[in-house]
């Protein structure tokens, strides 16, 4: 039977990347000098798994590389080697190399051999440096397959406990018989009287004569599993018969064989032993298989906890029951059963909703997947920047949608880099300010309503208001005489084309500005805000929807059309009071709500549709907030609230201003989902234009 093992490669890659993340986290937590056994064990296990898997799946270069790393870890684990900073850094570099190798292999790209060799050599050097080298053990392979040998005399005397190891002498003898023809004599002399017989003990022994061309190695191999559980004597039968009975002590040699053969298939140590062949063949075959099946990029799989799957199965079970109940009801339906029908439908609705919630749950992952890269980032950057920084993380178990997580990664890295680079001061500077030498960067995540909130907080210098103002004026973003509140000034860092870095460093000055961060977050339906105080620090707050696939919506009617406003952006809905409506120059309207004036968004105008009524007093105002700004959307009526599945308009059409997508309502028709932030921006823009036009006129 031949099995295509490449089908397990995806899982292997996935778990290996996880293993590497674990290694990285643990390595970063290691303090040079003290050997944290638990940590080293965890790191060792991860390396060990990667080695085992890569060997099995034919990724020999990965297996070879990991082998050296594993040896190093093994020595640390046994206390034979100290945990030095050098070793930790080298192992971190090894983690990077492995990650690169696996990434390249997964997408069938070339592995950077130079880099791999470089780190590999450094590991070797470190290994050879002081501790005993394990390699030496492997060298000896004393095999002399003399052609004059025509068979073997085997004396096999199992110790009494043999059965308790699960081994069966008959099986062993049968296996031996596959190497040639055998003559076996059973020695019953040790068998006690029947009443004293313990069936759990082995009391038999055998004298076996094996004829044929089997090598000593092969014979020994048959007994490899029981070498410690028996007395074994193997004598060669040579062509000159009886002469030179070569007696061999069995114990140490099989180990040497095992050590030598699969250990380093590429080393010149390989002996012409039959057993080496299968191993070599495997390696080649698997490599060929791997090359034949290029795994272009990621296939986008997701690992799901069994509990989540179980919950789903339960729910589907209940759904099936309800369905069959309804089916039965339908077969001979009479009006007196209408009550039961209603109940059944209610049940169906509830199960469907639960099922939907649970299916969505499958896509949810803890944000730790995203946070996990930061210990390394902070570790690397702080030494690069000569800063002392402590990273704190909380709320790592807060869950969010896999897609959102993937897309928030880069903006988060950018913000963290920014805090490290521009926020937290150099140690001297901090001491001067009377702050502790070590700065603290705090990452926090939590749920709030239908959103996930991620905070990046540092206790650094805070945003430099004067500098930002200056820069904004210089770049023409604000006028010289504009008076802005501190918060408004802070917001300027998100303006396109703005960058405060006095020196463009390779840490955060990568040509990507905060405006891109803001745009990326907005594309995810989220917002980012900054709060900052001089010499106290800055906090960046990101608010994101938990998932991109579904949202809680308020259905509203406008003319003959139904629209959906995301519930999260609605602040309140109110009956319009005519007295609070103010028309301003140019035709724009504002609504006075408490002490605020909100622009009124007339979807009729923005969307150019025929309204059922244009009288504000006959409609309702839905007060919404988008991008931190409020506005009122004028609608004819509020319909129900429901969860809707978001469908893209772009699949078959294109992006439409003011609309974030569409959904299919219960009756099968399509309803558009409003892009509140876009609409608010649109209306503010409109008000501004109308005002300017009025001013010019």
């Amino acid at each position: 039977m031949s099995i295509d093992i490449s089908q397990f490669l995806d899982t292997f890659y996935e778990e290996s990347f996880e293993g590497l993340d674990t290694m990285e986290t643990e390595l970063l937590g290691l303090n040079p000098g003290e050997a944290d056994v638990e940590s080293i064990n965890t790191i060792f296990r991860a390396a060990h798994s990667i080695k085992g898997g890569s060997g099995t799946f034919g990724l020999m270069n990965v297996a070879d590389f990991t082998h050296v790393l594993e040896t190093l870890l093994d020595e640390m684990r046994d206390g034979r080697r100290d945990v030095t900073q050098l070793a930790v850094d080298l192992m971190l570099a090894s983690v990077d190399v492995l990650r690169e190798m696996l990434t390249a292999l997964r997408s069938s790209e070339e592995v950077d051999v130079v880099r791999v060799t470089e780190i590999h050599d450094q590991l070797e050097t470190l290994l050879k440096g002081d501790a005993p080298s394990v390699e030496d053990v492997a060298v000896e392979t004393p095999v002399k397959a003399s052609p004059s040998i025509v068979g073997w005399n085997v004396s096999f005397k199992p110790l009494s406990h043999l059965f308790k190891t699960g081994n069966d002498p008959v099986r062993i003898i049968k296996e031996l018989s596959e190497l040639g023809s055998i003559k076996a004599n059973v020695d019953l002399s040790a068998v006690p009287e029947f009443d004293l017989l313990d069936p759990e003990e082995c009391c038999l022994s055998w004298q076996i004569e094996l004829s044929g061309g089997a090598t000593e190695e092969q014979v020994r191999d048959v007994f490899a599993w029981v070498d410690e559980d028996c007395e074994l004597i193997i004598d060669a039968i040579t062509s000159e018969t009886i002469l030179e009975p070569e007696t061999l002590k069995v114990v140490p040699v099989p180990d040497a064989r095992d050590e030598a053969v699969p250990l380093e298939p590429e080393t010149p140590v390989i002996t012409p032993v039959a057993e080496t062949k299968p191993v070599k063949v495997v390696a080649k075959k698997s490599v060929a298989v791997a090359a034949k099946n290029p795994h272009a990029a990621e296939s986008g799989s997701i690992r799901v906890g069994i509990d989540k799957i179980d919950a789903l199965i339960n729910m589907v079970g209940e759904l099936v029951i309800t369905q069959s109940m309804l089916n039965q009801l339908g077969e001979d339906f009479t009006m007196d059963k209408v009550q039961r029908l209603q109940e059944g439908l209610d049940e169906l609705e509830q199960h469907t909703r639960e099922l939907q919630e649970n299916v969505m749950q499958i896509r949810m992952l803890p944000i730790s997947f995203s946070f996990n890269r930061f210990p390394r980032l902070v570790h690397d950057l702080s030494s690069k920047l000569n800063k002392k920084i402590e990273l704190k993380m909380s709320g790592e178990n807060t869950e969010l949608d896999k897609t959102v997580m993937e897309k928030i990664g880069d903006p988060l890295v950018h913000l963290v880099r920014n805090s490290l680079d521009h926020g937290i001061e150099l140690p001297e500077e901090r001491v001067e300010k009377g702050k502790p030498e070590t700065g603290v960067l705090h990452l926090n995540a939590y749920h709030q309503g239908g959103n996930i909130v991620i905070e990046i907080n540092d206790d650094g210098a805070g945003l430099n208001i004067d500098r930002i103002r200056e820069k904004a004026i210089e770049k023409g973003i604000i006028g010289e005489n504009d008076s802005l509140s501190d918060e408004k000034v802070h917001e300027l860092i998100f303006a396109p084309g703005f960058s405060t870095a006095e020196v463009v460093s390779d840490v955060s000055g990568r040509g990507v500005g905060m405006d891109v961060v803001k745009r990326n977050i907005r594309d995810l339906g989220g917002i980012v805000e900054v709060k900052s105080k001089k010499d106290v620090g800055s906090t960046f707050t990101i608010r994101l929807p938990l998932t991109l696939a579904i949202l809680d919506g308020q259905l509203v009617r406008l003319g003959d059309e139904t629209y959906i406003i995301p519930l999260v952006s609605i602040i309140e809905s109110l009956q319009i009071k005519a007295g609070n409506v103010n028309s301003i120059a140019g035709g724009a309207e504002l609504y006075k709500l408490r002490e605020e004036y909100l622009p009124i968004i007339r979807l009729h105008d923005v969307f150019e549709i025929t309204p059922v009524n244009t009288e504000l007093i006959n409609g309702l105002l839905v007060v919404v907030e988008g991008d931190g700004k409020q506005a009122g959307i004028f609608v004819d009526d509020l319909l129900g609230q429901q969860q809707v599945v978001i469908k893209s308009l772009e699949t078959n059409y294109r992006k439409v201003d003011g609309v974030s997508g569409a959904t299919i309502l219960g009756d099968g028709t399509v309803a558009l989902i409003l892009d509140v932030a876009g609409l608010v921006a649109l209306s503010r823009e409109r008000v501004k234009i109308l005002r300017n036009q009025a001013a010019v006129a």
Partner: protein
Amino acid sequence: MNMIQGLENNTLAENSEGNQYLTFLLAGEEYGVDILRVQEIKGWDHVTMIPNTPDYIKGVINLRGTIVPIIDLRERFSLETIPYGITTVVIVLRVNSDNGSRIMGIVVDAVSEVYNISDDSMKQAPDFGQAISTDFVMGLGTVDDKMIIVLDIDHLLNSSVLKKISDQGDINS
């Protein structure tokens, strides 16, 4: 019909008899589209309007869970509009574009026939003057002395999507 027969027919169609075209009527003219692009033909039904789009985009419909835009071909060609009647149909087409394919529907007066038109008999379209741009016409086929205007739906419908309302003025260019 099994697959092999199907393939044979297709090959035949391409080699000797030419391609099969579904034809439809629009303001008295008969137009043809490659039948392999036709996903389905359905009656006119309610559409959901999309804001800020040219008038010829009637809106979107739900086609088995995907959102499909519907284009009124009379309006697209700036022909006189008529009220939709019982023969009015929506032809759902697969349109190839640079980044994959789109599913879109066109509203036409009525469907007509399926014809084989060989590539040889297809003539270059002359300049129609005002009616529709020759860019959107693949060629003119003749069947039983009737002229069939074979449309280049990829070009026609992709350009329809790309144009915003502000560009509507020059669709006939």
